[in-house]
């Protein structure tokens, strides 16, 4: 029986639940597609500039695959605004049954047919199946740099499971944590890479909603990027709805005038971070001269929340400098940006322009909880 990809509708929901049950039997709890055909985050509607839509691959009465598209407006330097989509949560029955090995290709090609200006973000590394598939389809892949700042070195040394995966290394880290040598080494490295800005003309406050001042910042700072998903006040109100309490919205002003903003939050528990409380600088926006003040405000807010470690992914060279000059260290990144052929053409010269892409954990499908 033929497999047909179509918009996910309420009548597909029981078949999606069956599909999820079959995938879950494979043992990976992350293999689950939305139970609801209406996206809980960014449901389509009205004149929204950004929304999510879901598609399912249907064979008779069974669902054999599914994926999501996050439709959004993206500013491209010198080329204006374009509607672009993020390809996310592709799941295929082929994971558990090779009879359906073709479904992965069908999903990716269907997404490209619906929106040739397509990208994917995250994926857990360029060696992962989705990233490899997109590469085969001609996508350009680039890693978005990862930054971290250790707030409590002793806990970091004891809990950082990703660094403790070899027995001898775990022993050395225990010694370093117990003797204080690890604390000294981390603090020295962070101090050497810069101190946080403390200027009396900057002030930070937590806000509940974005308003007109964010439009001014969007218009001003978008001239310094080669690509950024729209972050005007309207879009920010959709992305960071006032009722979402898992994040904090920080407005930074200079001499009383808005200079930038940041979104911070506590990351979900993750085995690789052990029992650490991990804060994330999820998103940020400012002109280059105000970026360090924004990083300082975001860092200060998370430190007051009692986090042990602060992490962020940043692609724009001015932001990476601001993080490095604010005591953040660069770590290996598995956060991959993959642009379709058509999107790559739009972003030419890609290799040169990618240093000025503004991509953070807030892009793609990371919000509202997976940052």
């Amino acid at each position, binding site marked *: 029986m033929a497999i047909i990809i179509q918009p996910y509708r309420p009548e597909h929901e029981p078949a999606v639940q069956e599909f999820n049950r079959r995938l879950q039997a494979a043992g990976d709890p992350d293999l689950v597609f939305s139970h609801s055909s209406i996206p809980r985050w960014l449901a389509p509607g009205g004149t929204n500039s950004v929304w999510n839509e879901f598609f399912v691959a249907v064979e008779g009465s069974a669902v054999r695959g599914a994926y999501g598209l996050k439709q959004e407006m993206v500013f491209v330097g010198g080329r204006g605004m374009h509607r672009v989509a993020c390809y996310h949560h592709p799941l295929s029955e082929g994971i558990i049954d090779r009879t359906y*090995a*073709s479904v*992965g*290709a*069908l999903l990716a090609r269907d997404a490209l047919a619906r929106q040739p200006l397509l990208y994917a973000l995250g994926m857990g590394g360029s060696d992962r*199946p989705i990233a*490899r*598939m997109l590469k085969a*389809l001609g996508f350009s892949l680039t890693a978005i740099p990862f930054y971290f700042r250790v707030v409590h070195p002793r806990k970091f040394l004891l809990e950082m499971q990703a660094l403790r995966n070899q027995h001898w290394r775990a022993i050395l880290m225990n010694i370093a944590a117990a003797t204080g040598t690890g604390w000294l080494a981390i603090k020295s490295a962070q101090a050497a890479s810069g101190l946080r800005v403390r200027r009396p003309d900057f002030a930070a406050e937590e806000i509940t909603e974005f308003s007109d001042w964010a439009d001014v910042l969007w218009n001003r700072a978008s001239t310094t990027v080669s690509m950024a998903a729209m972050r005007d006040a309207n879009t920010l109100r959709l992305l960071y709805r006032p009722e979402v309490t898992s994040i904090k919205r920080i407005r930074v002003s200079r001499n009383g005038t808005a200079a930038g903003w940041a979104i911070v939050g506590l990351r979900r528990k993750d085995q690789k971070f052990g029992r650490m409380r991990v804060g994330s600088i999820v998103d940020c926006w400012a002109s280059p001269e105000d970026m360090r003040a924004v990083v300082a405000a975001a860092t200060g807010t998370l430190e007051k929340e009692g986090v042990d470690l602060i992490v962020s992914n940043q692609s724009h060279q001015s932001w990476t400098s601001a993080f490095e000059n604010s005591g953040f260290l660069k770590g290996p990144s598995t956060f991959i940006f993959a642009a379709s052929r058509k999107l790559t053409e739009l972003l030419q010269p890609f290799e040169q322009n990618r240093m000025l892409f503004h991509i953070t954990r807030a892009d793609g499908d990371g919000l509202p909880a997976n940052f």
Partner: protein
Amino acid sequence: MSAVFDQIRAMAADLFGVPAASIDTSSSPQTIENWDSIQHLNLVLAIEERFGVQLSPEEIEQMKSVGETVKLVESRLQAAPR
């Protein structure tokens, strides 16, 4: 066996990392360990490039074995204007 079969068998052997002699018309994702969703896509792309055809979603889904893939490509080549 046809020339199309020989060419597809050679492609499949290269993509899936198995000897060409071990591939016959009944070979499928169930019988070839490395025939996963990524290699399926690579096979689609290789066929499109080699034979100058664009496969539709329905055709991609029909490629359940080497034999069915050969039949599909042969029918496309016969239907193509000369």
